[in-house]
């Protein structure tokens, strides 16, 4: 479970987040949606401890992201926006590297790697060096290395952006699988239909604040609109930078 309590963050004079509160629960897919510049990536970066909030705190399974960052990092798996690979390492070596950084070793690690390669359909590229991988292949490797330690909480920043249909479907299936296992999935995207279709709850961010939160039905009720685009547009104050 991920809890954000009154998070504030400023970059010099630019206010990125202004008192964000929301909770992403276990066994649910929580969607974080908002126009460009709404603060989605900053909120995620604070959760995954790469940035510290100016005020407020983040709890991941009860651990504070600033003073217990090491515990938090063991509890989360992240597919960040920047997901570059090492061109001279194979897909398998990427997953192994992250596994070892999580303290996994030996047969336990190798069987986890093998399972991920199978789940994500990476058999063909497993022992190929990453140079020249397609977008979809890169995404799969990045996902696999984020999942190697079996994290309770999964944070995905635009996981299907630029992917073909088949790869998007693999990612969606994986998200559902994680949810059914009782894990907490925080799904961040600006693709409205995708969020609406796979998320149990949605948090709409706009200009560094939580504009609304709830199920798709609750958000429809709140805005009085039926078309999902209209719902989100109206919640973000008709911001045109989606």
């Amino acid at each position, binding site marked *: 479970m991920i809890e954000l309590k009154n998070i504030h963050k400023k970059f010099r004079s630019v206010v990125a987040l202004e008192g964000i509160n929301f909770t992403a629960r276990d066994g649910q897919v929580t969607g974080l949606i908002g126009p460009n510049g709404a603060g989605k990536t900053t909120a995620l970066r604070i959760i995954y401890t790469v940035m510290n909030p100016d005020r407020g705190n983040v709890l991941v399974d009860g651990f504070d992201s600033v003073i217990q960052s090491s515990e938090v990092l063991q509890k989360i798996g992240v597919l*960040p926006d920047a997901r*570059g*690979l090492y061109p*001279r390492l194979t897909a398998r*070596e990427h997953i192994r590297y992250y596994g*070892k*950084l*999580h303290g996994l070793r030996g047969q336990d690690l190798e069987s986890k790697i093998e399972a991920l390669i199978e789940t994500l359909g990476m058999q063909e590229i497993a022992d190929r060096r990453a140079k020249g991988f397609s977008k979809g292949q890169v995404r799969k490797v990045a996902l696999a290395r984020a999942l190697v330690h079996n994290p309770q909480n999964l944070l995905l920043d635009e996981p299907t952006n630029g992917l073909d249909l088949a790869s998007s479907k693999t990612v969606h299936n994986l998200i559902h699988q994680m949810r059914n296992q009782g894990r907490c999935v925080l799904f961040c995207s600006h693709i409205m239909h995708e969020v609406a279709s796979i998320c149990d709850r949605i948090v709409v961010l706009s200009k560094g604040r939580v504009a609304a939160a709830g199920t798709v039905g609750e958000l429809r009720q709140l805005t009085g609109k039926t078309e999902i685009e209209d719902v989100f547009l109206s919640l973000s104050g008709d911001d045109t930078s989606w």
Partner: protein
Amino acid sequence: MVNFFNRQTWQRIFVVFQKEVLDNARDRRSLLIALIYPLMGPLLLSVMISMVVTVTSSKKVVRETLYVHGIEYGPDLVAWLEKSGITVVEAPSDPKQAVQRGEMETVLLINPLFSEKFLKQETADVSVIVNTSRLPGLIAVNRLAGLLGKYNQTVWGERISQRGIDYQVLQPLNIKSVNVTSGAHISDIFLYMVPPLIIFNLFMGGVYLAIDTTSGERERGSLESLLINPIERWGLMTGKYMAALLYTSVAVVVQLFAFKFGFHFVGSSGSVFSHSLSLLDILLLFLAMFPLMMFAVSLQFIIATLTRSFKEAQTYLGLLPLVPAIPGMVMVFAPVQTQDWMMTIPAFSQTLLLGQIVRQEEIMLSHVSLSVAGTMLISLALLMIAAKLYRRETLIFGG
């Protein structure tokens, strides 16, 4: 609170180290800098030394030839030269041009009035044409000047004796020059070029790795993912740092052995080079250099962390090796007397120590300790700065 003694942290540091070593071992550029670049300096120096050795020692065997213009004007002088073991040959009609073209090193010009003046016991003129910009020319003119000086003294002695004056009275000093840089040893000066070459190489060895693992990682977009692993940032940096240090060490060791083999090869005639750089010397050199390697890699990490892109880092770090090598290059021409305080300065102290070890001069333990301790301290301070820079939020953006 930073915990340096956590076993788990060090296991993870080693994971990062292993990954960077493997990753860069697959990179042609990293390998080129660590394994091939270090050979360049020793190769160049060995070629230069062997050429100088050839030039300075070849003349000993054959009977010397001297080109003279105007043989007919100075029969006495020519006779004396031939008696002294010189083969006198008529010079071409345009001696200046011939020397310029390098057909010969020197030409002795005898003035048409030479014999006339000589017989009147007046000062007779001779000139020497030489191209001193060439080392063989310099050596030849030196030898010729010596010969002519000897002739001068002989004639002068005879004339004085004819006047009934004791020659010895007018010669308070009999100067015999003992040239210690006999033959091949003239190239010993090249030993002064060893320290700046080593320092340059030392600052180059791990540079590609330092850039690749910091600005490179950021530019590839793999840094942010890497930071989301349960390893503290100082640990992450330490793993990368150790990998860069290993590549630097490899470059230094490769170069030291290249020097050893290069010198052994050119010094086969029994010069100082064949004795230079024993295995013990190499070990000592490596140990004396180790704190400087730490210094170099720390500096590279600071610069690579602060720069925004791979290219920017490459620009700064490409120039960096020149700076510490400058004192060494200056000292090739103007050696300095070593003072204690000099031993506290990174790069400079190692330049001095390297020179002493390579030239097999006496090395003071106090100097070595000062150099090692001083550089180590400064390196650790730089390393702490680098770790601090790694902790910044802006690490993922650079600048």
